[in-house]
């Protein structure tokens, strides 16, 4: 549902001049509160810095894509190896 909410936000700004103007000025926070976004969405959209509405839309699209990718790969495994292996210590621990 959150993707749908974010899509509607951009779409609403295309079909309403007032809404679009508000998103690009100091009324953004007020409009976002009315959009019923999740707290993390609210923070992310509030933080967008865009020179114009096209840039704002591109930033929202990038946010949606990042979320979709994170949801499709929830188990990201990254092995962490020690940078420097102390072979003497490792050997002594092995024989201890």
């Amino acid at each position, binding site marked *: 549902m959150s993707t749908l909410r974010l*899509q*509607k936000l951009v*779409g609403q700004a*295309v*079909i*309403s001049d007032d809404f*679009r103007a508000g998103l690009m000025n100091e009324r953004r926070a007020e409009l976002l509160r009315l959009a019923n976004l999740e707290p993390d969405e609210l923070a992310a959209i509030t933080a967008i810095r865009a020179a114009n509405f*096209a840039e704002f839309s591109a930033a929202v699209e990038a946010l*949606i894509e990042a979320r*979709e990718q994170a949801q499709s790969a929830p188990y990201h495994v990254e092995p962490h190896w020690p940078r420097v292996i102390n072979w003497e210590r490792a050997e002594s621990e092995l024989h201890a």
Partner: protein
Amino acid sequence: MAQPTVKFLCVAIANALLAHYGVERPPVPVRDFLRAPPPDLSNELSLIEALSFGEAMYIRGLSGQGTVFSNPSLPGYTQRFALARALFLGLCNSRGGQAAGLPPAKVLTNDLYDIANYFARCLLMPKWLLPEGWEAMAPEYVAELFDVSVSVVEQRKQELPTPY
């Protein structure tokens, strides 16, 4: 300068229109969208059902008023799809569409035609309105449910699932 993809804008605008008109079940009343467009689009969109050839076309008159002319003698689902496609061309010419980065619809190129068709499919068969397990249902049943052609259902099946 970063630009949104046209496909993203198609889905975003389709979903905003569906929310604006309070659509909660198929079929999507696209004709009503054109008869009573959102206030800021009233100069870009209107509907005259009196075309005697073709399917539908979007024309902007000397006064600046954009109008969709449609052919009422066509089957219902053909008309509806043509109306949704023509609606997109009006959106391309609107202030909001231009601000978002939609392509200008002065000349109907093949690319623009393909994008308009994609918009029409998103509007008439939005992802969130599709019934559970619709891919396994008979295409004829889904087509009847959404009042679209079977080929639109097949195309939608191919392009979903996508992020949008």
